[in-house]
């Protein structure tokens, strides 16, 4: 059976696409799937750093497309997780080095090799984005609870629908305390504007910085809230769509809960 191509996109930069791609890839591989993560951000590659595989790059995606190597030669196996492979971007070319028809061809090959291929889409809606969505079967839109991120995600969703792809939403970097105080959009506000299916909610988590800097997968960190959320997202993405979505909330002590219950009655 052919594998799926899933594009992770957001429109706005810096909302966590790359981290989420790496983590979902790792989580799916831990579930026993054969997974490839592809860095589509040609010229500004990051995914290799986040995964800690920077020093092993020999060939990249542009080499595959220009016929200088085979997919197997360019795909780098992860250090810790079996079945997880990275296809890195080229740092010296730019987005125009790949054309949409090249991607259709490449994704056709990847479908045969891997159960799931995750494409880490660059920010923006130009060539890099077009290349990423042209052959995708599914899309995951990452959004943070900020008006600017919501605006860009909305545009991206419109463009995905125009390509007949129905996207799913991840709301990243939620700070429950700020949401409670009304200083941050709640995920309900975001979903109300974007009105697409929710795939998961990820809380702001300091482990993400540690994990990115050391190149260790977030999903392997036992007590990371974001890691747990990403595990559940990976399950929901592949085979368990009905797994309930956990809403990040402030951990309240028993007495605080009790007092807030009483104060609500007034």
């Amino acid at each position, binding site marked *: 059976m052919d594998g799926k191509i899933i594009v992770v996109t957001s429109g706005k930069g810096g909302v966590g696409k790359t981290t989420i791609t790496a983590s979902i890839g790792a989580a799916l591989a831990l579930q026993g799937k054969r997974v490839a993560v592809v860095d589509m951000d040609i010229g500004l590659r990051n995914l290799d750093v986040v995964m800690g595989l920077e020093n092993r790059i020999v060939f990249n995606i542009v080499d595959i497309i220009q016929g200088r190597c085979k997919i197997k030669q360019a795909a780098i196996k992860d250090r810790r997780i079996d079945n997880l492979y990275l296809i890195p971007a080229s740092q010296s070319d730019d987005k125009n080095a790949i054309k949409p028809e090249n991607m259709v061809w490449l994704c056709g090959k990847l479908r045969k090799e891997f159960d799931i291929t995750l494409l880490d889409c660059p920010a923006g809606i130009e060539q890099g984005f077009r290349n990423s969505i042209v052959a995708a079967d599914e899309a995951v839109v990452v959004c943070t609870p900020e008006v600017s991120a*919501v605006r860009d995600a*909305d*545009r991206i969703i*419109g*463009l995905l629908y125009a390509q007949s792809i129905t996207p799913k939403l991840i709301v990243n970097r939620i700070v429950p305390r700020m949401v409670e105080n009304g200083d941050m959009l709640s995920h309900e506000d975001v979903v109300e*504007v974007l009105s697409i299916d929710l795939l998961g909610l990820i809380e702001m988590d300091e482990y993400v910085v540690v994990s990115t800097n050391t190149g260790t997968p977030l999903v392997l960190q036992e007590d990371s809230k974001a890691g747990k959320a990403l595990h559940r997202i990976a399950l929901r993405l592949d085979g368990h769509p009905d797994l309930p979505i956990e809403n990040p909330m402030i951990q309240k002590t028993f007495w605080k809960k009790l007092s807030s219950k009483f104060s609500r009655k007034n």
Partner: protein
Amino acid sequence: MNFNEDSPPVKIKGVGDSLWVTINPSLPIDQLKQELIKPFERLKHLAINARIIIDAGNGEQESSDDLIETLGTFLKKEFQVGHVTKPVSQNRAVTQNRIRQQDMGNSWHHYQNDGLVIAGRVRSGQKIQAKKHLIVLGDVNPGAEAIAGGDIIIMGSLQGKASAGQPDNEEAIIVALEFKPTQIQIGGFVAGGMTESAKNRPEFAYIENNAIVVDDYIKENPFRRLAWPEVR
């Protein structure tokens, strides 16, 4: 009036605000119908709602009443004509008003709307343009644009940009169930969105004293005072 063998079985001419149709009552009714179709087809939309007077050429004889009635029903059915009478005579007392009201009531059936009705969510970066009125059954998101030559009616939340009455219709209004646009334009006037949160009830924007004003739509409905429903 007498008919010769060579005079046409059906003649039409405009009289006042009506069409005067002269028929030859001696011909069979089916042939008359066939003869009526030809000129009325040529009239096309001019026939719609037109007032028709059918003259059977024999004054006010009772015998022709049935014929006129049959042909009248036929014309109403085939060409949506308005009121059909026999030649005006003493019974002009048939109140003109009633006829006008009847025609008015009928006219809604044939009114061709050139407004644009769309359903769904207009997302950031999308632009909806209508020649005349624009009705959106859904939300207009921030970053989206709705543009119309006439009014804009949003059956949902308006959070993007709305430009009504483009380019120069200052009578146009913008209505939304939840009114919190980033910017609105009516004709040549522009207003920025308000920072205070929407009132969670339908509001509308219009031009008063060269400025855009926003009001509660339920309380200040501008069309409530109109005496008779009219086409906008």
